[in-house]
């Protein structure tokens, strides 16, 4: 077994050598041009973030002398200072609560609605689906005034619900669209088989369909989590009390207040972007799936 693998390996190497020999100068020229451009763009995206990270661990004095280079003595204390002055011990938990609550709310409602739209037939189905699809185009701007007064009149404006409930409602169009597409990909026969075995409609949804729609649900969760994390206008309107703010709203205000202290703002920015960046690095496939599904399906 080892020998046959070795033989295959040798064969592959020799064939790739001949391929390299056969390839012309223009091929290598094109490769060099391609990688030059790709690496240039890599730098365009990475340099700003790297610069901000190195800025975040500099003293003001070092930043004045050495604005572009890497820090000599990283000042990790800057993060503690930004954490305290920026009240991140309040805003970060807020953000996590919002993101988790919105994910749970959207997942429950969008799964049920997406399932009904994909797997059952009922009068008004197309109208309801089109109604939800209009919501994908409407900007939040178009409802910002009435939703403020609505939240106030419902008595939820000064509470976390004042942001969570509208955010769930606004997340529905895209999420229903996504879950409907996923349920449509599951064969009807699976549900029919369960029905023959005496499963109730709820049982078909909960025990048969939902476990199979798990990848869609994961995509939805990552997408909604990161979307809620970075939402700005919605909390600007709907979190009227300072202690209810999420980080994406708090950071620009922090920047306005400490305009002169660039390292401090950089440290606060790093605190804000690190959690979503980590989630993205681990679960990027899900997030990218969500984005392309929204656009292509």
């Amino acid at each position, binding site marked *: 077994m080892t020998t046959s693998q070795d033989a295959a390996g040798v064969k592959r190497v020799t064939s790739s050598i001949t391929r390299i020999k056969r390839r012309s100068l223009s091929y290598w020229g094109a490769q060099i041009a391609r990688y030059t451009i*790709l690496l240039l763009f890599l730098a365009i995206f990475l340099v700003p973030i790297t610069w901000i990270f190195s800025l975040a661990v500099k003293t003001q004095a070092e930043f004045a002398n050495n*604005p572009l280079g890497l820090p000599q003595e990283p000042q990790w204390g800057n993060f503690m200072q930004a954490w305290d002055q920026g009240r991140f011990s309040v805003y970060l938990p807020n953000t996590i609560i919002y993101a988790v609550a919105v994910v749970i709310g959207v997942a429950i409602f969008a799964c049920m609605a997406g399932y*009904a739209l994909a797997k059952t037939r009922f009068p008004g189905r197309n109208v309801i689906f089109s109604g939800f699809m209009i919501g994908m185009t409407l900007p939040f701007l*178009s409802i910002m005034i009435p939703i403020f007064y609505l939240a106030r009149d419902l008595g939820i404006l000064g509470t976390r619900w004042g942001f969570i409930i509208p955010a769930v*409602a*606004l997340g529905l169009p895209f999420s229903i669209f996504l879950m409907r597409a996923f349920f449509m990909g599951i064969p009807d026969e699976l549900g029919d088989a369960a029905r023959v075995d005496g499963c109730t409609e709820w049982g078909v949804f909960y025990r048969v369909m939902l476990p199979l729609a798990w990848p869609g649900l994961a995509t939805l969760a990552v997408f909604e989590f990161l979307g809620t994390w970075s939402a700005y206008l919605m909390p600007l309107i709907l979190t009227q009390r300072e202690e209810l703010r999420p980080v994406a709203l708090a950071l620009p205000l922090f920047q306005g207040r400490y305009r002169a202290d*660039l390292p401090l703002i950089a440290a606060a*920015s790093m605190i804000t972007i690190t959690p979503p960046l980590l989630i993205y690095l681990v679960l990027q496939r899900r997030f990218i799936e969500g984005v392309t599904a929204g656009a292509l399906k």
Partner: protein
Amino acid sequence: MGTQSLSARASQGQSGRRFWSRYGVSYSFILPAVVLYIVFVLYPFAQSFYISLTDWNGFDPVMNFIGLDNYLKLLQDPLFWTAFSHNIIWIIVGSIGAIGLGLFLAILVSSRPPGFLIFRTVYFMPQVLGPAIVGVIWLLIYAPRRGFLYKVGEATGLDFLQRSLLANPQTSLLGILFASIWASIGFFFVIFLAGLQNVDRDLLDAARVDGANSWQQFWNVTVPQLSHVITMVIALGMIGSLKVFDIVWTMTQGGPANSSEVLGTLAYQESFNHTHHGYGSAIVMVTSALAVLMSVVFIRLRERRGD
């Protein structure tokens, strides 16, 4: 079928029960979402439209119905046209720039060369940050006399990098657009990547055998197959450019001297800073109408093409 309609005629109550036993599950599954959506999206939208027909300022108990006055005022308001023209510039420069670069990069990596995952991860990364945070980061980069670009300009002797783009009314919009393009290339890039996977490789090979050069292969083989994706991406870019608010608000709030004002920031200023709720609502209604119109046109285009 026959018995069903007979029994339906026979007893109203029985048919109701039948209806419920047949569709009850579907409706109970979809009802929570529908209620939430109507209460928190559709109803406020209808209210927005109504407010746009009044002179309401937010705190007066009276809401005077003034018909289309706000819309007529809008047409004569130079600031509205300034903001609108900035949205048009956003569509042309911002979305077309990001779409072009996204497509270009997607083509460069569509054969998944070594390093593909790194390129995709990094190019798409700014999407995760969200436009408000991107605005904060780029304010640091643009910071006058101390920002990244200024310092690079100082180190390399390139004068143009030391000009403060955002403080100058001539260039403030351009400064925001650079940041926005930086952030949105990745979005179009991943969509084109997904689209390119469906491009027929055999056709490309056939074209190559027939002696087509790279440009001809791209223009005559790849683009026609991508046309569906390209239409859709342009529609998304245009709708996104109309809705833009966050990044402008965190970077310049529309200033200096309205030089980076867009419809979104103008509507916000009118609604909340000047408490002209009626007038602000008229602006967002125009924005929404244009966005819906664009998506309808786009759906029609797509249907006509038959896919």
